[in-house]
């Protein structure tokens, strides 16, 4: 005991010192990270490519989840410019002064896109709805699409699914963390607990195998899915009193959002967004509204 005391004291001192050193190193690393590439973000006015606050200089790094579903993308490849979201990204890029091959795509799971910490992209496009609560954690651009929720069913359940009351008795499903789930909870209030899936694919499988009678998702996705599933139909869409918009997701406080908003505004004014919606998201005009 007498001989061990100095050893123990030394161990304690060393531990405390190394912990202190760790935290000091964190500070130093953070200082380095605080000023990343291409400065000039102080001058809010200029949106020229050279002055933009980018993750990787000279390129626009865009993230989306994998797999990339239709009709937002086509053939699972975001870089082919096909599908509504892919087309919007290339239109925005062009507006900002980037050529098509200056756009780089990265994969980012939805669950990781909003967690605290530095992002590895400039913005994320993934049918993400803008809500005030979410806007406290990340920065959203202006909306690029107004989303209505709709329900797909197999033909057998079509009659029941055409009214809100009928839907109450059905087993419904939706993809997790989506406003579809709120539509089910708030508008339908079904008797059975809805099933919640991680991805569109899983939800589609569940519908095919009769695990659920109806799947609620946004109208364009619903339309595309029902074209893929034989014997299914989009039974109706929800009347949205406060429709939500899809926005591009940026790291909290990223100044790039201002220039992107300008670009989106220009595209809206020129009618480009409407035209792209006509091109990629049409065919859903005849879906009745659920009462």
């Amino acid at each position, binding site marked *: *005991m007498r001989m061990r*005391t100095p050893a*123990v004291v030394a161990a*304690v001192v060393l*531990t*405390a010192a190394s*912990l*202190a050193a*760790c*935290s000091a190193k*964190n*500070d130093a690393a*953070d200082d380095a990270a605080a000023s990343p590439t291409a400065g000039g973000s102080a001058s809010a006015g200029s949106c020229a490519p050279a002055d933009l606050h980018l993750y990787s200089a000279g390129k626009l790094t865009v993230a989306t989840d994998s797999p990339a579903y239709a009709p937002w993308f086509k053939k699972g490849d975001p870089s082919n410019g096909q599908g509504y979201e892919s087309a919007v990204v290339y239109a925005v890029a062009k507006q900002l002064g980037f050529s098509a091959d200056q756009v780089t795509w990265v994969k980012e799971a*939805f*669950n990781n896109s*909003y*967690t*605290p*910490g530095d992002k590895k992209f400039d913005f994320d496009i993934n049918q993400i709805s803008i809500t005030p*609560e*979410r806007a*406290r*954690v*990340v920065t959203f651009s202006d909306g690029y699409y107004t989303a209505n929720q709709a329900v797909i069913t197999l033909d057998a359940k079509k009659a029941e699914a055409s009214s809100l009351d009928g839907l109450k008795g059905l087993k419904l*499903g939706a993809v*997790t*963390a*989506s*406003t579809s*789930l*709120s539509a089910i909870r708030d508008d339908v209030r079904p008797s059975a*607990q*809805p*099933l*919640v*899936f*991680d991805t569109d694919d*899983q*939800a589609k*499988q*569940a519908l*095919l*195998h*009769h*695990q659920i009678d109806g799947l609620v998702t946004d109208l364009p996705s619903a339309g595309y899915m029902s074209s893929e599933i034989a014997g299914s139909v989009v039974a109706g869409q929800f009347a949205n009193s406060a429709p939500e918009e899809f926005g591009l997701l940026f790291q909290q406080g990223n100044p790039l959002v201002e220039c992107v908003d300008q670009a989106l505004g220009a595209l809206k004014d020129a009618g480009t967004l409407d035209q792209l919606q006509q091109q990629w998201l049409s065919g859903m005009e005849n879906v009745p509204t659920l009462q």
Partner: protein
Amino acid sequence: MSVWAPSARQIERARITRQMRRRRALLSAVVTVTVLGAVLAVFLTSPGWPAFRAYFLSWSDFKGAFPSVSQGFWLNLRVFLVAEPCVLVLASLVAVCRQSRSPWLAPLRLLSVVYTDLFRGVPSILVVVLVGVGTPALQLNGLPTSLFWLGTIPLVLCYGAYVAEVLRAGILAVHPTQWSSAEALGLSRTQAMWRVIFPQAVRRVVPPLMNDLVSLQKDTALISVLGVWEALRAAQDWQGYHFNGTALFVASMYFLVVAVPLTRLTDWLMLRQIRREQGR
């Protein structure tokens, strides 16, 4: 007859021993406080702490997510309470079957070996997905369609394999003279196994069995991939919708509340077993 009273030297020795013990206790306390304090200090002064706290420890999100995570956890509990007895029954049958010598059970013996190898080799989450999604896909009459069972059955299969091996190890560890004693008394192999060997095997392997029990309780979270509303699914849904991770914290808390008493019990049983064996 004289009554013993401590000598002066003994009194002196006792005093010194007490003093040394007190110093040791004091040093332990100081070291613990210093180290923990330093760790806490690093945490609280880190630059990302406010963001971390807002994301994981937000009181409003805690209150908001609490009801739905609680509701979800009730499902986890139910799955656990049903799965555990099923695991024990299945594992016992598999373990005993492997040790049997009856020719009638030969195909089952082979099946047991295949079963334990297969289900210890495939990740549990894959089994959950394959069974949970595959079974309805087959569209056969008579197969379970309720998601409760589609989630519980794969868990029972996976854990059954592990527990079967643990029980088999227990059976093999029983002294061979116990078999001889039982057979010498005229018991059949089956009687000897179920009345003599198996009860002893189970007593021997209580600590690893308890470990598997705690592990199963945690793994009920795996059924979230089937879309059922259990604790993890509820937490992830809140997280994804509100962009806040406090719900995950709530779910973890629930799992701990069940697991910690179980692990303490496991520890106690294990130490008691060791004391018994060494004290013999």
